[in-house]
């Protein structure tokens, strides 16, 4: 399964109202952490009622927890935008 889909599947558990998972690896080709097959750099934009009202740190930690340490350890970069 593509990593984008793995991330999306994990984040569905937060019941997001909107969710975008973007593989930005091509933007970082040749740069440190990039891999020949891509799937290294990801960006997530999410809006979820379960995240509303939390501090920024708590929002990010909730997303990190949902994605899971195992998956985060496999990728090089995880950019996150939590939308209000």
């Amino acid at each position, binding site marked *: 399964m593509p990593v984008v889909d793995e991330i999306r599947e994990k984040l569905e558990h937060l019941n997001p109202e909107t969710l975008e998972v973007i593989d930005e690896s091509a933007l970082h080709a040749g740069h440190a952490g990039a891999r020949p097959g891509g799937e290294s750099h990801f960006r997530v934009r999410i809006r979820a009622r379960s995240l509303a009202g939390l501090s920024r*740190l708590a929002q990010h930690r909730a997303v*990190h927890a949902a994605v899971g340490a195992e998956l985060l350890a496999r990728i090089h970069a995880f950019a996150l935008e939590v939308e209000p």
Partner: protein
Amino acid sequence: MTAIDQIKETITSNDVVLFMKGTKEMPQCGFSSRVAGGLNFMGVTYKDVNVLADQDIRQAIKDYSDWPTIPQLYVKGEFVGGCDIVTEMTLSGELDQLLEDKEVAFNKDAAEQIRAANA
């Protein structure tokens, strides 16, 4: 001294600490570069810790902060966030407020310039 003890010592003996890939003069990653560049531009005095130079620190800071990515910014011993959060806080003015509350000197005009350039 264990890596965790070294981290505690560093964040208590420096008002502002950035755990990053590379150094403030020569960042080795775009995300570290963005945060270091912002702090440099705002004239913040800070200690840079290059996690690429020490694998124990690199792992220990992730455990200590309960945060999976680098860079990580600490102000007066308190974890502020990573690249996304620091960028958002810079653009919203919350970082100015935090630095003012913690009595850390910075150039307010430079912070305004960053916001103007990203408006």
